[in-house]
Structure formats: structure tokens, C-alpha cells
């Protein structure tokens, strides 16, 4: 007798647990307002990444096309993956030959966005930008030159 009671009890509680589950999904089915999907390309205008989001390394330029990079290669050393390549040139400053930045090469395809280069920079010349749409049709486009053509170092940055 007891086993028969248990048999029906089992069925009852089993069905009850199923109904509890159905209630949860049913709740969301009847509340379409709670949908959390964001439609990405459409919401580009309003989509704003958090300010600290690490998207890619950029070399900051001011309105006079000047940057702060001295070409010291600290970021190149700090980078674990060889993402950054600094090519130097020698310039005459007060009759002395001084090391300066010629080309700041950034291999986006190798970058892991670890952000170690940012604190390594002694002059705060580079920052992490918020951009995240990095897809291109050609791999070679991912190798970027960060200093603008014709740019030069800001005055007073050593």
C-alpha cells in the first residue's frame, strides 16, 4: 500500500516540479519587455563602450599634429607579443644627434589587449582606444602605423 502511495506521490511531485519550470519560462514568454537583446549594427549610434575598455593602442596627436612619443621603446619592451615595433631616426637637436621616433608600427593581429604598454610609457603618449570593429578583408591592413604622416614630437617632451 505504501509503495502505491509513494508511486502517486512521485508522479504528483514530479509533475509539480515540471509546472514550476514551465512557470519560469512562461513568465518570460508573457513578458517580452524583458528581452535583453541589443541589435548591434543598428544601435551603433547609442552603443558606448566603457571608457577603460581596451580596444587598440593609439598614439595621441594634438591639433598641431604633434605627439608625445620620444621613441624610447619602453612599450616595445613591455609588450609580451612583439606587437609594437619602434623604428628610430636620428635628428639634430642643438647640434647633437638625438634618438627620435620615425615610425610607430603596431601589429594589431598580434595584440592581446593586455594593456601593459600603457603604464610602461614614460610620457603617456599612447592610450587604449575604445574601438572594437577591427575586422578587415586583408591581414596586412592590421599592421598599422600609429604616428600620423608629418607629425612631430611636442615641445618639451624628453
Amino acid at each position, binding site marked *: 500500500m505504501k509503495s502505491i502511495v509513494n508511486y502517486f506521490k512521485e508522479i504528483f511531485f514530479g509533475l509539480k516540479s515540471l509546472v514550476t519550470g514551465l512557470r519560469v519560462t512562461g513568465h*518570460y514568454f508573457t513578458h*517580452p519587455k524583458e528581452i535583453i537583446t541589443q541589435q548591434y549594427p543598428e544601435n551603433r549610434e547609442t552603443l558606448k563602450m566603457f571608457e577603460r575598455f581596451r580596444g587598440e593602442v593609439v598614439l595621441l596627436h594634438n591639433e598641431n599634429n604633434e605627439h608625445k612619443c620620444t621613441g624610447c621603446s619602453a612599450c616595445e619592451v613591455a609588450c609580451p607579443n612583439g606587437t609594437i615595433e619602434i623604428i628610430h631616426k636620428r635628428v639634430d637637436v642643438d647640434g647633437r644627434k638625438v634618438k627620435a621616433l620615425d615610425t610607430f608600427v603596431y601589429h594589431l593581429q598580434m595584440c592581446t589587449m593586455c594593456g601593459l604598454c600603457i603604464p610602461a610609457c614614460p610620457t603617456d603618449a599612447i592610450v587604449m582606444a575604445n574601438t572594437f570593429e577591427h575586422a578587415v578583408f586583408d591581414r596586412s591592413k592590421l599592421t598599422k602605423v600609429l604616428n600620423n604622416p608629418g607629425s612631430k614630437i611636442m615641445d618639451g617632451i624628453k
Partner: protein
Amino acid sequence: MKWLYDFSYLTHAIHKGLSERFEPGTVVILEMVMVGVAFMLLFAVLGLVLVYAERKVSAVIQQRLGPMRVGKWGTAQTLADVVKLLLKEPLINKDADRFLFNLAPFVIMIAAFMAIAALPFAKGLHAIDFDIGILYIAAVSSLGVIGILLAGWSSNNKYSLIGAMRSGAQIISYELSVALSLLTIVVLTGSLQLSVIVESQADGWWIFKGHIPAMIAFLIFLIASTAETNRGPFDLAEAESELTAGFHTEYSGLKFAFFFLAEFANMFIVAGIGATVFLGGWMPFHIGTWEGFNAVMDFIPPIVWFFGKVGFMIFLMMWFRWTFPRLRIDQLLTLEWKYLLPINLMNIVLMAFLSLMGWHF
């Protein structure tokens, strides 16, 4: 507009028009072709609508939007998918049994076509009204498993084979429960003919008239028919987390589309049977002596009632699928043989007793 409430006007008109022009033999053949084309179109439309509905229902349940890109609200998404499937390369395994491999999807579709022929869609809209309708449907709807077994065997893939064997064990078991739960209502109607069953529900649906046993039978039917269509939580034959895709792992392109379509067609068929037997088929919903209410309900055409009820049943199945985890194969068989079948048998006896005492409405 009276043909909307009784399709026999329409069908008789067509028959008359054809008989005036052709020989009786040609008329029969022409009518058969017309019915066949109509069902093919119905399946195509069903596939498109149900796949879209499934994706939208699951999306809303999961707090997503579902397809939104192709057409307004993604309505043309399934159409785009069909085009994609048609253009895909139909791959065949090197060591597959090519004949059986190609045959399997058709077997499944044929089973679905045979079953849908016996469904009464509306008054007078009934391809063939067998006097053993329920028996016929129970027999034919289990033919589909042959297609699944063929697919699993001929693919030369162990996952497919396991899926097919599971499906075989599953459908053979659950066939019983489906048939027995339908028999519970047959006890009341005294007829296996589907049109008679529908007519007998003019004053109320069997799920209400038959008291508790009918409700139990409906519940069992719902569980067993979900299992018979290989849908979650009984989708062991596919079980994508265990067997990648089960019996249709090796299928691609159009043949895969057939399996996919057959799943939804079968879902429609079992929902149609459930609606016909338990929920009054195309009969409108009436409440006792509320004349005004009943008149409003009568105003809605029967075909809308039928598709509404089928839609409700299909929604229930989708709701189940997107809520529950999957059973294991031995639990599936335990559920059938230790729970559903004994309860079903008791239920029939109870129903027979009720019917004998005249305690139903």
C-alpha cells in the same frame, strides 16, 4: 461565404464542375492530384510558418529577439533558409548505403503525408474519412520510424546508428500510449471515425465532458505524442549534446530539409489528432445555454477553430521543449512502461466505468 463554414459546398462544386467535363475515372485521378498538391502546399507553408514560430517562441522564452534581419521581424528568414538548404551540396558518406540513404527522407515524408490525409480540417474539408480513422492514423504515424532507422543505418556513422536505435525503442513504446489515450475517448464516442468523433463534440469537447479520465488521457497523449515526434524533452534520437545530431548527422542540403520538415509536419499531425479527439476538432467552443456567446463562437469559421487549437497544442509542445532537460533512454522507457502505460490502462477502465454508468455529459 457559406463555404467557409461548410467546405462540402466547395468540394461538391469542384466535383460537379469536373464531372461535367471529364470521364469519372479521370475525375478521380484529377481530384487525387488536387488533394496531393494541396497537402504539399500545406506542408511547405507549415514548414515555413512553424519553423519561424518555433524560433520566435524559443527566442522570447529565452529573452532574445530571434530572427530580425530578413524581412520585417525576420518573417522571411525561413524562406532564406530554404533557399540556402536548396543550394547546399548534398554530401553522401563514402561508405554509406546510397540507396537507403537517399530513400530515408522520403519514407519519413511519405508517412507524414499518409497520416495527414485522415485529419478533418473543417466541416467537409477532409481528404479521406475512414471509418477506422484513429486506427489508421496510429498505424501510419509509426511508419516514420522506419525512415529514421534507415537513415541511421545507412549513414555508416555510429552516432546516427545510436540515435536511430534510440528512436526505434522510443517510438515503438510510445505508440502504445498514444493509441491507448485515444482509445479512452473512443470508449465515449463508440466510433473510430474521426468525423463522428468531431460531430459528437458539438455540445462540448471531450476533455471537458469526459471529466478527470479525459484530462488524464489528454495529459498522457500530450507526453506520448511529444515523444513520438522526437521533440524535446524526448529528442533522444537527435540529442545534439550527446550524438551531435543523431540520425541525421550525415545529411545535408535538401535531404536534411526533409527531415527538418518532417519533424514539424509530424508535430502538426499529432497536434491535429489531439485537437480533433480531445479539443473538439473544428467545433467551436460553446458554453451551455449562453446563446449570445455561442452565436459569436459559431461566427468564427471552423477552419480557424481547428488551426487555433492545433496552434495551441503546438505551442504547448514548444513550451515543453524550451523548458525541460532531456531524458535518458532508460528513463524514457521507464516513464512509458512503468508510469504512462499502467495509468493509461487504469484510465481506460475508469472511463469505461464512467461511460457505462452514464456519468459523463
